[in-house]
């Protein structure tokens, strides 16, 4: 299989001519040509496949655990969108900040969070990444520069701008060097309709902040198809271009092209210290949350989307280009099944969050009736056994 060239990305490049024209009108965006990254070798690709399989298996077991009432509250499943998290996170450095919405288990795992801590968080246990205080929508992991999943739609977009502000400030003002980080800020298509997103983009552009707003366009926000909630849904580039921020569309169903296109963008943002708006086209296979009969879309649509599956596509590529055997896939699948089963067992055994934790972390110190703060177990030494 050949990785198709992303037409839209090329168009984004062509578009620099119009940017150049607007230079005459006082805009200062430099013209640029994005380099498409090389597709990495077999070892790396097998790693990506393993991550995507891990996320999918993890989500299957999450749904089970939810049905068995081990998980409560709102819980949003990432199945179908795995290539976006895996392909984009692979394109940045481990110390680049990442901030998310509430559909966040997949990114947390792709970022390197141990599935044990991710599962334990949803079980409301002390071994969870936030000591069981946050649950499914709030995956935080300081060691992996993961600044959380956030439940209020679009609340994370100004945070993304702020994280980029901070890295730039640290790199340039405090260290006296060159800005060298890039922040990934993910949002759903529903978040396009919140005012704060436009404020976040405007600020990022004005202040030359290296943040990439990664729109995971899965075409629905809850039961609302994007065209019903967003004007100009067929041409979202206008949303960012109004703020002098470049836009690109990537195929979020294909981890290879996601990585290839996104790496170039991330490198450019890092180099130029500028924001970007990237639309990853994808689809969520499951309901919005655990109680959604999905009456707003057809079975045919779901079937045709699922027929173009990110895991199958990568497997096909590995078979054709790298002679990987079906047996190797089976082995990987067995491995992740074991890993996730162990995560569930570990989470079950992790003790309930003790009552005194209720009064910790309200403040950093012991002011008032509170009892200070402590690191989550997973960040303590030896916290992972």
């Amino acid at each position, binding site marked *: 299989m050949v990785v198709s060239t992303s037409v839209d990305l090329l168009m984004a490049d062509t578009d620099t001519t119009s940017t150049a024209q607007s230079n005459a009108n006082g805009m200062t965006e430099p013209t640029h040509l994005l380099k498409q990254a090389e597709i990495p070798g077999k070892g790396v690709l097998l790693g990506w496949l393993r991550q995507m399989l891990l996320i999918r298996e993890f989500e299957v077991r999450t749904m089970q655990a939810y049905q068995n009432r081990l998980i*409560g*509250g*709102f819980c949003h499943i990432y199945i179908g969108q795995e290539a976006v998290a895996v392909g984009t996170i692979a394109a940045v450095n481990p110390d680049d900040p990442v901030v998310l919405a509430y559909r966040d288990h997949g990114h947390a795992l792709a970022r390197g969070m141990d599935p044990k801590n991710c599962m334990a968080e949803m079980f*409301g*246990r002390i071994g969870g990444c*936030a000591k*069981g*205080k*946050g*649950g499914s*929508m*709030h995956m935080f992991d300081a060691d992996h520069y993961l600044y959380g999943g*956030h*439940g*209020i*739609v*679009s*609340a994370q977009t100004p945070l993304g701008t702020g994280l980029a502000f901070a890295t730039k400030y640290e790199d340039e003002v405090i260290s006296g060097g060159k800005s060298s980080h890039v922040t990934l800020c993910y949002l759903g298509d*529903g*978040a396009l*309709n*919140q*005012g*704060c997103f436009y404020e976040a983009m405007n600020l990022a552009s004005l202040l030359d902040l290296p943040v990439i707003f990664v729109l995971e366009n899965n075409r629905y*926000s*809850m*039961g*609302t198809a994007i065209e*019903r*909630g*967003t004007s100009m849904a067929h041409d979202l580039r206008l949303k960012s271009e109004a703020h002098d921020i470049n836009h690109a569309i990537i195929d979020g169903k294909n981890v290879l092209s996601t990585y290839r296109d996104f790496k170039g963008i991330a490198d450019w943002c890092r180099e130029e210290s500028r924001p970007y708006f990237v639309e990853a086209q994808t689809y969520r296979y499951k309901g919005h949350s655990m109680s959604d009969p999905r*009456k*707003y879309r057809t079975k045919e649509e779901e079937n045709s989307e699922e027929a173009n599956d990110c895991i199958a596509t990568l497997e096909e590529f590995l078979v054709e280009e790298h002679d990987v055997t079906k047996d190797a896939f089976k082995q990987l699948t067995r491995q992740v099944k074991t890993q996730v089963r162990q995560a569930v067992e570990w989470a079950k055994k992790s003790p*309930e*969050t003790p*009552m005194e*934790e*209720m*009064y910790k972390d*309200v403040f950093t110190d012991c002011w008032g*009736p*509170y009892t200070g703060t402590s690191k989550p177990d997973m960040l303590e030494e030896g916290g992972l056994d």
Partner: protein
Amino acid sequence: MKVTTKERVIEFRDALREAMCEEMRNDERVFLLGEEVAQYNGAYKVSKGMLEEFGARRVIDTPISESGFSGMSIGAAMRGLRPIVEFMSWSFSLVAADPILNNAAKMLYMSGGQFGCPIVFRGNDGAGGQLASTHSWCVESLYANVPGIKMAIPYDAYDAKGLLKTAIQDDNPVFFLESERLLSTKCHVPTEEYTVPFGKALVRRSGEDCTIISFGRPLHFCLEAAEELAKEGIDCEVIDGRTIRPLDIDSMVESVKKTNACVVVDQSWSFASVGSEIASQIHAQCFDDLDNHVHRVHSDDVPTPYAYNLEQAYLPNTRKVCEAVRQATYNS
């Protein structure tokens, strides 16, 4: 006015819908808008079937733009339309804090009485069950601080319908706080139209030894506690305030003058809260009648935790109400 007909029992959510439908039939200026209210039939099925009856001009799906659609509705209300704005959760109303608190609440005053704001904001308030810190807001204390808004919190289906009709008919902005936890509860609701007035508390259980005052969902714990305490020989009077603004303090004072003891149960945080306000007013008006200071039960003074055990310990519950009553009546 309590109308008696043959017992018809319906769910709280259906009662809310009936109120909206009746008012929309009676007054063309009334319309409903919010996230998922039309095609999806409402995230909690409150507006089920309304799109079919009233069409897309009067039952309007909005994008996730709380600030925008709240502000837009307030603009429409200034022209005399009567919007009902559904917040999927009052937690999300914080995104619209400026329009609802600055514009809706103050428009009449700022315009010297020229432009009113006949609008209802409604939706789920309070912890829904492990929804964690951002999605578990009890906004009553936060918003009750602001002059210019009315605030109702129904406890059962009968009041849900009657109070919501009053809210829609009111010429002022009304914050209408429902509880997801109550939506499936049922009680008798007559088929005839009726309203429940604002500012009239309801005695849900009469008793001699201690007055328990609450609103909305925590009343369930209060009534349970009253039964439990009765076994111990403590006879509680449970008052459902029904509306926080206006507050029927007179009924509360009257009850406390009889029982000489008072517990206020308020699911929001304790600091500068509805509970502290009521306690203060009771102290001022019943100073000589009280055998003990007013005791209060609130959510713990921390962000809402996700973990089930912590959330249970954090919220008001029957045990906490019992404990407070025992203390207030020197029975502990």
